[in-house]
């Protein structure tokens, strides 16, 4: 097989893996959008916050250490213990639930029935708040996250493809783990939404929250639950991205990457988020590979947006989204 084609295949495979990671973030968006009609811009920052908290707990960092030191002139940074990954994940999840409760109690409850664009801007504010809060709590230096996920070249794929095609594909173990986790997560979420009592209640709230309220569904409970589930997805995405590229501010920018994914796949569809993620992942890698060198490279910054923009003009609801019907 010609070398170029093999390269292209490797790029495509890597693009698929990157797409899975985008889809992970996009999933969190879809969940909140389906259940409350809120486009949650803060999802990316939630992933960053979750990852920061996880690292902080594992390392035994003192929360708000810098702030306390600045106010009281003390010199405390660490408790001096290390928490195993699994326990730290559980504690982080509890913090994310508390966060979900706080968001609902202090922000979203007061904005019920507002226009979607107002809610969107509120979540931008929330994103800023959470970003400052996370940095204040754990410090803004780049941290390493290691919860024991396998990393590095997968030698089995490398050897097999080398023997079969004469060219070894480079595929990261972490990406494979991420794909498996994403697949499990999607299945779990679909089962949860379709077959459990809470899931049905969630879909009822999404359909019409006043009608849901009148048949005895607690809106507060459902909204806190939805934000908690989104927090859980953010935690998973934070672990994956944090293990891949370190826990740092740029992690929150993956939210921006997830936006075109959503626009392609449709805001209301869980499978759409996955397919959209794969299209964006493969598309931007292939575009960078084929056309990038001709026009100066680094096309990954904008390719997804322009693709989504062009796509939206022809199909505003996305590939799998519900048709947008406007009533007067």
């Amino acid at each position, binding site marked *: 097989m010609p070398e170029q084609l093999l390269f292209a295949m490797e790029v495509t495979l890597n693009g698929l893996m990157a797409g899975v990671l985008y889809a992970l973030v996009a999933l969190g968006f879809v969940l909140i959008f389906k259940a409350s009609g809120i486009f949650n811009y803060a999802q990316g920052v939630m992933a960053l916050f979750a990852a920061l908290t996880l690292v902080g707990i594992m390392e035994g960092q003192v929360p708000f250490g810098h702030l306390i030191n600045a106010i009281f002139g003390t010199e405390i940074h660490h408790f001096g213990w290390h928490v195993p990954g699994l326990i730290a994940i559980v504690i982080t999840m509890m913090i994310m639930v508390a966060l979900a409760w706080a968001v609902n109690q202090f922000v979203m409850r007061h904005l019920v029935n507002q226009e979607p664009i107002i809610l969107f801007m509120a979540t931008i504010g929330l994103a800023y708040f959470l970003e*400052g809060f996370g940095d204040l709590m754990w410090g803004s230096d780049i941290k390493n996250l290691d919860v024991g996920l396998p990393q590095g070249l997968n030698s089995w794929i490398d050897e097999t493809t080398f023997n079969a095609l004469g060219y070894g594909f480079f595929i990261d173990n972490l990406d494979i783990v991420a794909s498996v986790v994403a697949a499990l997560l999607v299945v779990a979420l679909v089962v949860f939404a379709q077959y459990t009592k809470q899931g049905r209640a969630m879909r009822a709230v999404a359909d019409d929250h006043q009608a849901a309220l009148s048949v005895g569904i607690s809106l507060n409970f459902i909204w806190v639950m939805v934000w908690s589930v989104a927090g859980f997805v953010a935690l998973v995405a934070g672990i994956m991205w944090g293990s891949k590229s370190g826990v740092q501010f740029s992690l929150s920018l993956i939210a921006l990457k997830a936006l075109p994914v959503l626009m392609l796949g449709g805001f209301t569809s869980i499978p759409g988020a996955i397919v959209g993620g794969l299209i964006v992942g493969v598309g931007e890698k292939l575009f960078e590979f084929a056309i990038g060198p001709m026009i100066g490279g680094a096309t990954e910054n904008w390719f997804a947006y322009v693709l989504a923009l062009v796509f939206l003009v022809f199909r505003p609801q996305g590939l799998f989204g519900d048709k947008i019907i406007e009533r007067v």
Partner: protein
Amino acid sequence: MLYREAGDFKTSYKDDSQTFPIQMDRWGYYAILAIAFIAVPLVINDYWASAVLLPFLIYAIAALGLNVLTGFCGQVSLGTGGFMAVGAYACYKLMTTFPEVSILVHVVLAGGITALVGVLFGLPSLRIKGFYLAVATLAAQFFLVWLFNKVGWFYNYSASGQISAPERTVIGLAVTGPVATPAVKYLVCLSFLVASAWIVRNLTRGSVGRKWMAIRDMDIAAEIIGVNPLASKLTAFAVSSFFVGISGALFFSVYLGAVEVGEVFGIQKSFLVLFMIIIGGLGSIFGSFAGAAFIVLLPVFLKNVLVGGLGWATDLAAHLEIMILGGLIVTFLILEPHGLAQLWRVSKEKLRLWPFPH
């Protein structure tokens, strides 16, 4: 007792529909203009110009521009930073290609070029709405910044990839470059701001502005009563981008002097200007000023108190700043969706009746 409209009789329709119908408002307006044009240039120094006044004036122009699009026409844009970059690079190319033409003309032309680009990226607004459009404008933001970073023609193939403003004079006084005095820079920006505010005010109370507001309030109803959505949305994009472009051009040429596009006109700038109009007040000209002043002053204030007063580290103050900013956005959206402008209106209403309760 102090703020009264009694005895101020209107005898013509023209009097009745003026911008400041109350006499004391009018006097206040002239007084502020006089102070801004005459008193401030006499006392201005380098610190005040570069830390507070110049950014305030330039951001106020950008906020006015975004307010036309978002506040008056209801189309949210997250591409403000990208459009400011268009203004800056257009101004740079014009300044270096036609050095003999006045910089004031270049700034206005840069606004015109930005308006064309804005219309181009505004075209999808006919098909998509709300936050779909907001996300679509992100395409403009990222694509434009990438373009100015990668295509050498835009920065005249300079080795650093930066653009820096050559020295230009207006009636013999240096406006750009290292020898320009703060007073001159201030006056140039102030003139542009006053002219922009005057134009926006008169556009928004005419037929164009009414069409924008009709589209904002309900686009389908507006279309049924005969407002052309294509024309209204695209004019809003054009006018908005025009002012955003002017602010970008001034930001680069007069304020900073040298610009690296990704750093100065990144996505953060888009959010900053959006925050200004949310905090200041959507659909209000006073709100654009108030929001710009607030967002410019907040970091200066926090820095002086926390770093200067309490001796904290600067990064700590920066984290606290974005936290407060985010908290304020949410608070304003919940408690006062019309922003500082509405607070101002309410307090004026109270002042008219004071000290009587009714």
